[in-house]
């Protein structure tokens, strides 16, 4: 038996009209929960992106004393060459350091005036082969105490703080999102339940004249799915808005690090599609729950 699309469409429209306010309330709940859900996905994506940037090129810098002897340099180079956890290193001599200094402080000539290449420390920019923050920290510590070494600096702390805090936020938002998503699912199920109750006479007659089970169920399932999809679609502009707000917020220079939390609009699109899909899924599952429990066909 063919299912008539016209019939399903008419019945669904009838169901929707029957209780506009409840329908709207359900959509708002789905909308808010999916916006939260999508945001948490974007935050995760941003954290991944931010830490990934460091992970690829993570390096620590061994600054030597300006007056370190050639044998001290040789010892360091030897240690760097031997260590299997070190992939390579660049040596920046005093002239190189001076050039970098000039570039970095080009807007502050009074600083440059007072600096000569001789007082700047030469350094080794070391690239480890591993990306585990703990291992790199231990590695860097091996060089700290060597003769001729002035200081070892490494960005591990920064990465770790960023990673931990962002992950905390992301998990927190995700938990809230899942809870709200469940609430939305139950709300959809309840909306469908009231629709089933309102149409119990029609349903009784449909069953008596031999309407197939799917004919009875489909208009209700359509209603739930529409609520989920609309809620999901409404979340899309919210996700773009949040990403753009974030982009505006981190425009300030000192928030350089946060900038990588802003994701590409392609990523927002993908997340949006996923969120709309999840909205549809929530709608289908919610109405299935209601139809299964309250529609005895």
């Amino acid at each position, binding site marked *: *038996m*063919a*299912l*008539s699309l*016209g*019939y399903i469409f008419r019945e669904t429209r009838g169901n929707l009209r029957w209780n506009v306010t409840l329908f709207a309330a359900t959509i708002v709940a789905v909308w808010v929960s999916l916006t939260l859900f999508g945001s948490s996905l974007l935050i995760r994506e941003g954290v991944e992106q931010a830490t990934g940037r460091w992970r690829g090129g993570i390096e620590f810098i061994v600054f030597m004393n300006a007056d370190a002897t050639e044998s001290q340099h040789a010892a360091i180079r030897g240690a760097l060459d031997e260590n299997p956890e070190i992939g390579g290193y660049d040596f920046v001599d005093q002239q190189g350091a001076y050039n970098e200094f000039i570039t970095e402080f080009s807007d502050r000539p009074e600083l440059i005036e007072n600096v000569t290449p001789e007082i700047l420390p030469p350094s080794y920019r070391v690239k480890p082969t591993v990306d585990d923050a703990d291992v790199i920290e231990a590695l860097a510590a091996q060089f700290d105490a060597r003769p001729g070494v002035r200081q070892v600096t490494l960005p591990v702390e920064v990465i770790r703080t960023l990673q931990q805090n962002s992950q905390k936020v992301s998990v927190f938002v995700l938990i809230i999102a899942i809870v709200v998503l469940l609430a939305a699912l139950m709300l959809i199920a309840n909306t469908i339940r009231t629709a089933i109750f309102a149409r119990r*006479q*029609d349903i*009784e*007659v*449909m*069953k*008596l*004249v*031999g*309407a*197939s*089970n799917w*004919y*009875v169920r489909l208009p209700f399932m359509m209603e739930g799915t529409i609520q989920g999809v609309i809620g999901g679609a409404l979340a899309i502009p919210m996700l773009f808005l949040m990403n753009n707000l974030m982009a505006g917020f981190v425009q300030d220079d000192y928030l350089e690090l946060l900038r990588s939390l802003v994701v590409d609009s392609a990523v927002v699109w993908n997340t949006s599609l996923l969120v709309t899909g999840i909205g549809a899924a929530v709608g289908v599952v919610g109405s299935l729950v209601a139809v299964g429990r309250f529609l005895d*066909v």
Partner: protein
Amino acid sequence: MIELDQVTKIYKGEVLALYSISCKITKGEFVFLVGPSGSGKSTFLKLLNRQETADQGAVWIAGKEVGALPRSSVPKLRRLVGCIFQDFKLLPNRTVYENVAFALEVTGRSRQQVRTQVPSLLELVGLSKKTHSYPHELSGGEQQRVSIARAFVNRPPILLADEPTGNLDGDTSNGIMRLLAEINKRGTTVVMATHDQNIVNTARRRVLRLDRGRLTADEAQGRYA
């Protein structure tokens, strides 16, 4: 066409509705089901379209055991078995036409079929002029005619009638009976539960008498009592 084989139905494990009922109804018969309230008439009918299932014994319709049908096959059974009720069960927010068309639509008929079949059925039941009325604008007899049109629109080989004249006065009841007789004449098997002595005594059809769930009489050209 219809066969009950030692059918027992007990509600909630304690209320005995039918006890060991066996009978056969052949194609094209018109059968009255009589007995006082609570004697099991409605349960008898509900077993035939699988609104209820027997606790013991078997119900056969057109060669199929009704109780053994999978859920997905129940709609098919119900298209073989039309139903009318004492309270008509019309949808109040739909017109006469829409009430009848509804039965065709939800069983997946094309718009073309709906457009041709509904008017011809409304003509059969004598309601061509009330096509666009709502149920509350009709008399009881007219409402029952709509419900008969709806039950018959799928041309079921069996029609079940549960006290169809219970809410109607004598003349109106006779009109409904003439309509059911007409439908029966066209080959549809009719099983009708009733309290109405006049109708049973006038029609002189087969009578199955139930008393407290037991089949106490089965007479070919029976009377009510």
